[in-house]
């Protein structure tokens, strides 16, 4: 519901400040991370996507009002896709629009916040095809999505050579989970703290995961963005 | 052979002054081409006592005029006093009663009675149970589409089926009185403000479109259901009784129009035009029969929304 006026003047938040840092980033650079996040979600939460089957050709504009860009989510016969778009919301007539602060959207995605309550308090704004919105909400809520855990799963195919290093990997996994949680928590911390923490944690992550020969830059990007696909699913 | 169609007059749902109601029924007895007349307060037990003194006189006059008289029970029964009223009505062995709550049907079990439109009969399974309990006529809920009516028509056996063909659609019942609420009163001290609105209190959307009508604890449609053009099809579906809900229009003339179409004397479309002039308090609707929004008016296979 937040509407155009609110879109223009989101409340001051760490996310908003972080958004300024992201502003120069060409949106196309986000795409590999978004694609990766979506395929991960489909793998880990097939039940969620099964519930979305009822939506034949729905498209959503997901607008974290405190970020300088939006996401579009398209569902249909082909694999669902998520794109980052400018705040003009260039999407040609989406089925529905969801607007809210990024953290609200993430909490909704993870089922940690009730969508109706967010709507009643008007932290969440919805427009357009409400059946599509409800289907999306109900599907996402059914799934037990946990962004940190989901994204960390990228690093953990415990097979082949990795199996031998299971003990080590488990420790690293736990460490990475902790670290990523810190990154997420940092979003709500003060902006200076956030930047420092993020830099530090990301360096840690990088070191840890190099051992596992995971493709670090991509995974890392996913770690940061996954929040948004998530938000998208809300 | 299909038995002759019956035209029925449902109970007055609104709080008309008792004398107005008495005179209304006298005129119905003397002039209206209806076969069955339902009497009694269905909506609010607080109103019941006003008309009760006139009931013997009115029912006798209706019976003398050859009308079948049926006594309707309250629809929402929430306390001992209301239950007692239903018990008293159903205890009289020679009264024909319409049960508008399942409690009434339970008390009437084993002898012929009518199931009113406020009891939920949506399918053949339910119809069968109620007919087994003694119902010989079942007035169906207003939201049933033609497809459901057809199935029920086949399943009814010897029981008659009745549906509403004229009047505001009874959409909801509540414990709360919205008439009182709109006047900043409580139900207990309502001052019978519902008497001011003989067709219910108009309720519009914020944009000024007619939408609903409030009748005390009951909510009705703004539009008037009119199934004149559907009468022939309804007869083919096995519906034998056609209910007119009283509105504050010339109900004798309304009955005459329906009678003319039922008897095959008059053309339905032309009759509908005449009815429109006579009952001009609101636009017509027939959406439920056609499986659409109840507020819709489907005309000759095409669809045109009404306000």
């Amino acid at each position, binding site marked *: 519901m937040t509407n155009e006026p609110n879109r223009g003047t989101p409340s001051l938040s760490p996310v908003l400040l972080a958004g300024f840092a992201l502003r120069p980033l060409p949106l196309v650079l986000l795409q590999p991370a978004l694609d990766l996040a979506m395929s991960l979600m489909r793998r880990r939460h097939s039940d969620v996507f099964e519930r979305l089957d009822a939506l034949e050709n729905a498209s959503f504009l997901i607008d974290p009002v405190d970020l300088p860009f939006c996401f579009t989510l398209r569902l249909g016969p082909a694999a669902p896709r998520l794109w980052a778009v400018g705040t003009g919301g260039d999407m040609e007539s989406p089925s529905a629009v969801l607007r809210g602060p990024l953290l609200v959207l993430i909490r909704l995605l993870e089922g940690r916040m009730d969508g109706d309550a967010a709507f009643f308090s008007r932290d969440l704004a919805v427009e357009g095809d409400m059946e599509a919105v409800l289907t999306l909400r109900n599907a996402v809520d059914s799934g037990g999505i946990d962004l940190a855990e989901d994204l960390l799963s990228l690093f953990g195919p415990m097979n082949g050579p990795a199996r031998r290093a299971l003990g080590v990997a488990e420790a690293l996994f736990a460490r990475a989970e902790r670290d990523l949680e810190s990154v997420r928590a940092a979003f709500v911390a003060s902006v200076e703290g956030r930047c420092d923490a993020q830099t530090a944690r990301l360096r840690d992550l990088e070191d840890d995961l190099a051992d596992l020969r995971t493709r670090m830059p991509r995974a890392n990007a996913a770690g940061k963005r996954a929040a948004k696909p998530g938000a998208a699913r809300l | 052979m299909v038995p002759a169609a019956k035209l029925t007059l449902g109970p007055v749902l609104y709080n008309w002054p008792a004398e107005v109601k008495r005179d209304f029924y006298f005129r119905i007895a003397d002039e209206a081409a209806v076969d069955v007349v339902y009497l009694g307060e269905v909506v609010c037990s607080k109103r019941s006592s006003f008309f009760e003194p006139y009931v013997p006189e009115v029912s006798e006059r209706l019976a003398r005029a050859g009308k079948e008289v049926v006594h309707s029970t309250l629809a929402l*029964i929430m306390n001992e006093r209301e239950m007692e009223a239903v018990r008293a009505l159903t205890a009289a062995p020679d009264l024909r009663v319409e049960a508008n709550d399942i409690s009434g049907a339970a008390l009437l079990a084993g002898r012929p009675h009518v199931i009113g439109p406020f009891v939920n009969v949506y399918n053949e399974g339910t*119809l069968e149970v109620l007919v087994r309990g003694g119902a010989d006529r079942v007035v169906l809920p207003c939201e049933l589409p033609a497809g459901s009516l057809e199935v029920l028509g086949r399943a009814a056996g010897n029981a008659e089926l009745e549906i509403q063909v004229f009047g505001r659609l009874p959409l909801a019942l509540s414990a709360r009185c919205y008439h009182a609420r709109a006047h900043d009163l409580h139900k207990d001290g309502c001052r019978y403000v519902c008497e001011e609105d003989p067709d219910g209190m108009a309720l519009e959307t*914020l944009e000024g479109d007619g939408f609903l009508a409030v009748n005390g604890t009951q909510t009705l449609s703004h539009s008037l259901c009119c199934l004149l053009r559907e009468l022939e099809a309804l007869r083919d579906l096995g519906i034998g009784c056609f209910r007119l809900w009283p509105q504050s229009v010339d109900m004798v003339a309304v009955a005459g129009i329906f009678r003319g179409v039922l008897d095959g004397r008059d053309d339905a479309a032309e009759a509908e035009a005449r009815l429109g002039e006579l009952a001009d308090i609101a636009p017509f609707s027939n959406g439920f029969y056609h499986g659409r929004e109840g507020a819709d008016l489907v005309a000759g296979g095409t669809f045109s929304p009404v306000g």
Partner: protein
Amino acid sequence: MSGTPLELVCPAGTPGALRAAVDAGADVVYLGFRDETNARNFPGLNFSRPELRDGLAYAHERGCRIYVAVNTFAAAGNPDPWHRAVDDAAELGADALILADIGLLDYARRRHPETRRHLSVQASASNPTAIAYYHEAFGVQRVVLPRVLTVTEIARLNAQIPVETEVFAFGGMCVMAEGRCVLSAYATGRSPNMNGVCSPASHVRYEQLGGRMVSRLGRFTINQFPDGEPAGYPTLCKGRFVAGGCAGYLFEEPTSLDASTVLPELMAAGVRALKIEGRQRGRAYIAEVVAAFRRAVDAAARGDPVPPLGLGGMTEGLRETTGAYAKTWR
């Protein structure tokens, strides 16, 4: 006073919500299949047969029961989906069926006499004679009371009937007698009784007009909310309309029922179980509301004062009412 705790009957629209309810202390979780056989037939919601099987296992392992709602009215000429819902729920081991349709009650009694039958609120059984009928004719062992009765009326009723009663304690509130309202069908062609939906999302539109959010249902405007004002569902009976030249909430404000303050009175009135509304709500709602009511029910059973639940943020229009339990509501 103290006594046996009220049974806490909690909603679930998804397996995630079911686990949340069980983990938060529900005695019972009620749910429905993913079709028109239950009164929360919302898109993306409800359970498949395998999900019910898993849910039953999860609940039963933790000492929690599952009631399956098949509480819409079977369609004339097509009773199969309703019959299958009853058959499958009974065969999978549901602890009770929640039914409203007389034809379906009759079917369940004949086919699955051993499965407990509860009367849904949708049957609108509001007096002892009606309840006795459902008990005698169909062996109903519990009735969910319509949200039209005061606590005093409930107490009097309990003294006269041979079955348990369950009442609504929290959540969305019908202001109309349940099962006897076709307002939704009038505006959208889809009704609680026939389709299991009220004011369905498919017919809802929100539009931002100037500084207001306008909600529409079908072609009717239901409400307008100025920016910053708490919002409600675009449910017809919670809309703002004009009567006698005045615009307002003619039927009811956007509000939620909260009967936590009258729990001791409900216990004293002989009520057996408390029901929380909200199969359409998210896991977060379920977890928070169920946990709060667990505390409240246990406190009431010990004879302690019921602590404030702090559930204001979960309520529609961010407001609460004790609804029909107080006579002044009428």
